[in-house]
């Protein structure tokens, strides 16, 4: 079974703090993704990565950055957290190399920025 692990289930941070959300997958997947889920808006793509050290902006990249130094790990960084970044953050991975890839998700990190 594919396993996507997010390091924290719940986080509470203060406005202006630098926040790191970590995600690790154990299936040697090429692609990794960060989404945020908000009520009524579904899943919105923040950033994704096709390979180590490669990253591409998703639909809502503002206020976020990412890092992929190793294939299995994809980090989401909030340089200076703001209250509008309070959300559920979901990491996903997929195999890559073919057009039709199922994405496998982690359990999510619920971030509250006070």
């Amino acid at each position, binding site marked *: 079974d594919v396993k*996507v692990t997010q390091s924290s*289930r719940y986080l509470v941070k203060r406005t202006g703090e630098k926040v790191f959300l970590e995600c690790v997958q154990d299936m040697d997947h090429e*692609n990794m*993704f960060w*989404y945020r889920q908000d009520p*009524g*808006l*579904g*899943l*919105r*793509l923040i950033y*994704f990565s*096709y390979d180590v050290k490669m990253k591409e902006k*998703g639909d809502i990249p503002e206020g976020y950055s990412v890092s992929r130094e190793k294939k299995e790990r994809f980090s989401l960084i909030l340089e200076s957290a703001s209250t509008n970044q309070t959300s559920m953050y*979901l990491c*996903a991975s*997929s195999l*890559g190399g073919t*057009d*039709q*890839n*199922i*994405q*496998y*998700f*982690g*359990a*999510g990190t619920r971030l509250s920025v006070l």
Partner: protein
Amino acid sequence: DQQVKQNSPSLSVQEGRISILNCDYTNSMFDYFLWYKKYPAEGPTFLISISSIKDKNEDGRFTVFLNKSAKHLSLHIVPSQPGDSAVYFCAASAPHFNKFYFGSGTKLNVKP
């Protein structure tokens, strides 16, 4: 502008009856569609998919129908069970894309 839309935020169905969840899309380039199920405090899990070369795909109690001319897909659950109560997301992808566009989700409640 959302390219994948789920216009019903919630749906309530009696146990044993059929649940029908709907999804519309705007991009005619989309050729691969998936449904995910999400329980509270868990990540979405893959449920069923369909390629645009088909108009129906079935897996046990779950069937997905695709109407390309209407840019519409639906998920049928028969018979519905209380354990099916969850939020259901549809997602779509275009050729050579490795990313998906997700709808806003429909919360299904199956009453015993």
